[in-house]
């Protein structure tokens, strides 16, 4: 079940929430929409799920147009909206039954569908409780169960892990991974680790436009401009400016600056050129200057840094 978006735009008044974006999602992919709040992730999802109508452009879910044939599209999609809205006064089983009926699951199959969702989402112990009494983690599972009750081919999850504690986040992520195996899955998030942990492919969205598209690994290698190196030296009588100059002169070191300084040590922040490894050279240089090295740490630019580079103003 593929999703195809062509030149999609949506305006709120003068402001473009989504500005002429196009992309394609293939069957079976797990795609993450990554972007800061207000980037247009939710608006795009709302248009795919037919809640909103685009001002411009078209969306096809398995070649079915969302505008001219919205009922057919809706039947194929399972949707968990942002903030996971639920009927707090209903109990879990009643709610799932309601969701199944709304999704036109044949009457005879409803008990089976509910039972499957209760098992898959681990709702057994709370199935007779009112949703209002459940913890956030369980509510999220109910939201997921609701979205999948009719076994849709496409799952669209808007910030499925927001507001959960770290344990719950891991549980929900595992659940999503498990579900994603059989379905085309689109999720949105502003948390980097989430896409790294769950997605095959990332679309980084900023101010209504797609600024990057690719697997987490390719994005990392494509945008991997540099190495971040932290160097800690024991403080002695050597002049700081001299050290800085010496360190800067090492091959492949781009920039060097003093990060902070305390009683016993000086912290330097260095930037190394793409694809290099400068640790050995730094070590030799420091030894040649007869100084004591307390620490050396080298890190490649993370997806988080890429995200920040791409989305800051």
């Amino acid at each position, binding site marked *: 079940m593929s999703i195809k978006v062509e030149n999609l735009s949506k305006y709120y008044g003068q402001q473009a929430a989504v500005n002429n974006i196009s992309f394609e999602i293939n069957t079976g992919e797990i795609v993450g929409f990554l972007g800061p709040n207000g980037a247009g992730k939710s608006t795009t999802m709302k248009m795919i*799920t037919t*809640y909103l109508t685009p001002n411009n452009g078209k969306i096809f879910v398995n070649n079915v147009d969302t505008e001219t044939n919205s009922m*057919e599209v809706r039947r194929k999609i399972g949707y968990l*909206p942002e903030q996971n809205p*639920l009927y707090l006064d209903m109990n879990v089983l009643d709610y799932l039954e309601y*969701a199944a*009926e709304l999704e036109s699951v044949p009457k005879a199959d409803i008990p089976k569908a509910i039972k499957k969702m209760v098992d898959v989402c681990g709702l057994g112990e709370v199935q007779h409780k009112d949703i209002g009494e459940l913890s956030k983690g369980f509510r999220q599972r109910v939201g997921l169960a609701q979205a999948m009750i009719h076994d849709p081919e496409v799952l669209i999850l808007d910030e499925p892990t927001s507001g959960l504690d770290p344990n719950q986040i891991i549980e929900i992520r595992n659940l999503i991974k498990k579900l994603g195996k059989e379905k085309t899955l689109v999720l949105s998030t502003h948390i980097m680790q989430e896409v790294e942990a769950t997605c095959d492919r990332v679309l980084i969205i900023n101010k209504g436009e797609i600024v990057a598209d690719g697997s987490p690994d390719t994005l990392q290698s494509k945008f991997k401009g540099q190495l971040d190196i932290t160097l800690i030296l024991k403080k002695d009588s050597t002049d700081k400016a001299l050290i800085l100059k010496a360190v800067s002169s090492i091959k492949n070191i781009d920039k060097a600056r003093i990060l902070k300084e305390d009683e016993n040590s000086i912290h330097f922040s260095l930037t190394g050129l793409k694809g290099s490894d400068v640790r050995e050279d730094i070590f030799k240089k420091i030894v040649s200057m007869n100084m004591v090295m307390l620490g050396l740490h080298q890190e490649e630019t993370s997806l988080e840094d890429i995200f920040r580079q791409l989305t800051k103003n």
Partner: protein
Amino acid sequence: MKNILTIFKKELRSYFNSPVAYIVIVVFLIITGWFFTSNLFISGVVTMRNVFDIIPFIFLFFIPAISMRTFSEEKKSGTIELLLTKPITDMDIVVGKFLATLTLTATALALTLIYVVSLTFLGPIDTGSIIGAYIGLLLMSGIYIGIGIFASSLTENQVVAFIISFLIVFGLFLLNKVLVFLPPEFASVLEYISVDYHFSNIARGVIDSRDIIYYLSGITIFLLLTRTSLESRRWS
């Protein structure tokens, strides 16, 4: 049709699962009961007149109160987004909710049949006008519920929804009372729009197609307006 039934069942259940329905029905019965009994033995007439006169007044508050949550609550909690992305039409949702609220009102009305039954022990009753009045009240409540649901679809704030629907309902109710102050050419038009005028026709036991058409078209108009209001999310 099946979808309307699904929405209807869910809405009806949420009315009767919460204390709201019971409180509202009890208050309704207390007020109508007081008007039923207070004059009954003093006047010595076997009549439902007092009850049927007061119910349109009670409806002015009762119906905005029970219909204010229909869409406002879903808008506020965000469940409207779930509902509107399920494979059912907006009209199914509107009609399902309308019928559930109408059923709650009909339940309250049906409980007043106790008064009618107790009257039969006191003397002969005017069956025709009583049946007419009940049909009239049900149709009148239908138009009010249409207005209440429409108002509810405009805002996520239930209090605002209540006030809007009260103002519209009260306006329609008042029309018939201010006719004397208006030039006659206006008066006949306004009379036709007035809810009260048609009710008094039906309550006499005369069921005229003009009155029925008035109510049914009024209900249809407000249900369509509600659907338009739901759809307006797309244009914004």
